[in-house]
């Protein structure tokens, strides 16, 4: 789960990581009131999860109340690379003497937290890493030992921070590590980490990714919302307990198990099609989950055909077939479906589908055959009735047992 800047800063503040004072606003009135409370100059910052906010005009300094109102009006509702700005963060302006970079990432490759510090802050760190890898000091922390004072000193000296801030930078890193562990983050990034002209060290930005699996013990984090980022279908799927990712094609996909669904997307793409989504109906999918899944897939208006690719293990193919039959009773379906059922109770599932005689539902025997057919159906909707007839004739002669 990715947090917005202000959510990240509030999380930092809970762990005594120094951040500028700020106020959250969702309207021009709240923003102008917030600016008055903070005092001038202050900064009006768009809260969307995307880089390049400043260049897009989403971050502006206000010298007085008139400017604060102007900027708030301009930024609220602004579109930044496809995301609509619905929230603002009003913050005291900082007097910047130096810009550093600090982050802690959950390094799955090393199976340890990786702490990074650089004096080349304020720019894209991947670019710094590519052009001048020596400019980033790195250190892995033993998760059973935790962050020690010497870690902070080593990073600060190796990165070459100004001598007078070695200690405060080390302290900030230790607190950042506390936040990383206590909040169960996968990433905490501060870019820039600034030194003010009064030689104070502060996090001027905050990028935080939390582990979704840990939210059961962080009720406050679980309640955080990002109204700009949530796609309609993804929201609907989440409410129904389905694992759904929206893609930009026109072939709806449902499968069981993340790996098999990914593989199905690939095979459809290889057959020349464009998947509209990733949907993992999960292990042991029952009929009602299938009904929900069909609703979510079809709520995307771009979908021209749907592929079900099921290899039953815990999931029983007869349950999937029942779910599909129920879905056709409850949901208006006007696109063709291709269904491939294999594994646990596959014969029973295929028998149920054959008996139900659902309109425009094609049963295919193999994953490759199913992918080829759904691509043909999506690209050639007018022609589908004829194909349907052909398929039925073909399938009738193809019922030989395979195991």
């Amino acid at each position, binding site marked *: 789960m990715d947090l917005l800047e202000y959510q990240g800063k509030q999380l930092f503040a809970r762990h005594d990581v120094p951040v500028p004072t700020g106020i959250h606003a969702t309207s021009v009135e709240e923003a102008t009131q917030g600016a008055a409370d903070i005092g001038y100059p202050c900064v009006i910052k768009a809260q969307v999860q995307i880089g390049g906010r400043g260049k897009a005009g989403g971050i502006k300094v206000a010298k007085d109340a008139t400017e604060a109102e102007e900027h708030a009006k301009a930024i609220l509702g602004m579109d930044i690379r496809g995301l609509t700005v619905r929230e603002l963060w009003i913050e005291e302006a900082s007097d910047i003497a130096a810009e550093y970079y600090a982050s802690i990432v*959950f390094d*799955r*490759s090393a*199976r*340890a*937290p990786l702490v990074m510090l650089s004096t080349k802050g304020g720019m894209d760190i*991947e670019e710094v890493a590519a052009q001048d890898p020596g400019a980033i000091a790195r250190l892995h922390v*033993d*998760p*059973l030992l935790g962050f020690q004072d010497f870690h902070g000193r080593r990073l600060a000296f190796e990165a070459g921070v100004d001598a007078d801030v070695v200690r405060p930078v080390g302290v900030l890193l230790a607190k950042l590590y506390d936040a990383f*562990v206590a909040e*169960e983050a*996968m990433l905490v990034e501060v870019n820039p980490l600034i030194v003010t002209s009064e030689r104070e060290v502060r996090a001027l930005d905050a990028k935080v990714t939390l*582990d*979704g*699996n*840990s939210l*059961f*013990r962080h009720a406050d984090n679980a309640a955080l919302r990002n109204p700009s980022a949530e796609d309609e279908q993804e929201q609907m799927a989440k409410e129904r307990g389905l*694992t759904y*990712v929206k*893609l930009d094609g026109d072939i709806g996909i449902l*499968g*069981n*198990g*993340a*790996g*098999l*669904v*990914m*593989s199905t*997307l*690939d*095979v*459809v*793409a*290889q057959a020349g099609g464009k*998947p509209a989504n*990733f949907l*993992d109906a999960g*292990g042991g999918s029952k009929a009602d989950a299938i009904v929900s899944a069909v609703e979510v897939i079809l709520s995307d208006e771009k979908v021209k055909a749907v592929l079900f690719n099921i*290899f*039953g*293990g*815990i*999931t029983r193919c007869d349950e999937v077939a029942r779910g599909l039959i129920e879905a056709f009773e409850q949901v208006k379906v006007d696109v063709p479906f291709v269904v491939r059922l*294999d*594994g*646990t109770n596959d014969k029973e599932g295929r028998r149920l589908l054959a008996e139900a005689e659902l309109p425009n539902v094609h049963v295919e025997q*193999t*994953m*490759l055959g199913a992918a080829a057919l759904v691509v043909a159906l999506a690209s050639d909707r007018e022609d589908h009735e004829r194909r349907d007839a052909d398929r039925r004739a073909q399938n009738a002669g193809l019922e030989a047992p*395979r*195991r």
Partner: protein
Amino acid sequence: MSILVGPDTKLVVTGLTGREGSFHAANNRRYGTHVVAGVTPGKGGQDVDGVPVFDTVHAAVDATGANTAMVFVPPRFAADSILEAQDAGIELVVAITEGIPAHDMLRVYTHLRRGSTRLIGPNCPGVLSPGKANVGIIPADFFSEGNVGVVSRSGTLTYQIGNELAQRRFGNSTIVGIGGDPIVGSSFIDVIPLFERDEQTELVVMCGEIGGDEEERTADYIAEHVSKPVVGYIAGFTAPPGKTMGHAGAIVSGSKGTAAAKAEALEGRGVRVGRTPTEVSELAAEILGRIPA
């Protein structure tokens, strides 16, 4: 021989009295796995279909000599359950549980690596040695004994590939689901050497997916240390960056962890990579020779 689980496996199931735990433990037992004990705190002294239940893993090990644990408890208790099994001297822990917090696994992984207990999973379908033992939720009926070892980050995709192999009449020595989380107890590099040493295994299929750099590291390892043929498969060529594809570990971050990079790394080190599950079995047939009907 097969690897990890077999006739010598003596299995203790944590979470045996739960709905999923009892169902799958019964399946494993029917398959012939020696399920010797269950553990549910507070239910010691009871039994589930004749399998004795203990309050602690230590008590179960003392009474039954269990050497393998299958963890079926909910995510919030799973790390503790793995650590308890390790502390009780269990040699192999197979964690089926999905959704264990990543920071829990960081501590568990680091601790287990300092001892001798091997962990498979979490968020995995388990380990099946066809004809010998099944520990987990893999539908064993689809697989028969044979010479192809399979190691995979995904469950159902493994069934798909196993089925493709079965249609060409190949069986399996052992099928190992290592799990789809960012941190799993055993990676490809931990499992492939076991297949390399296993007499029954003549070819290894490794089934990867987007996220992390395990496949890339494995490519180097194979080139340097593995003499048996390895066929690869990678899922997620069409996955967009920044989106988690179902498995907590399956995410392309920036330009890292893409399927194309993984396939390229494997092929660059001489591992042939099937572009579809069907192609994987075709490559296996090409390497091992076709088995006539």
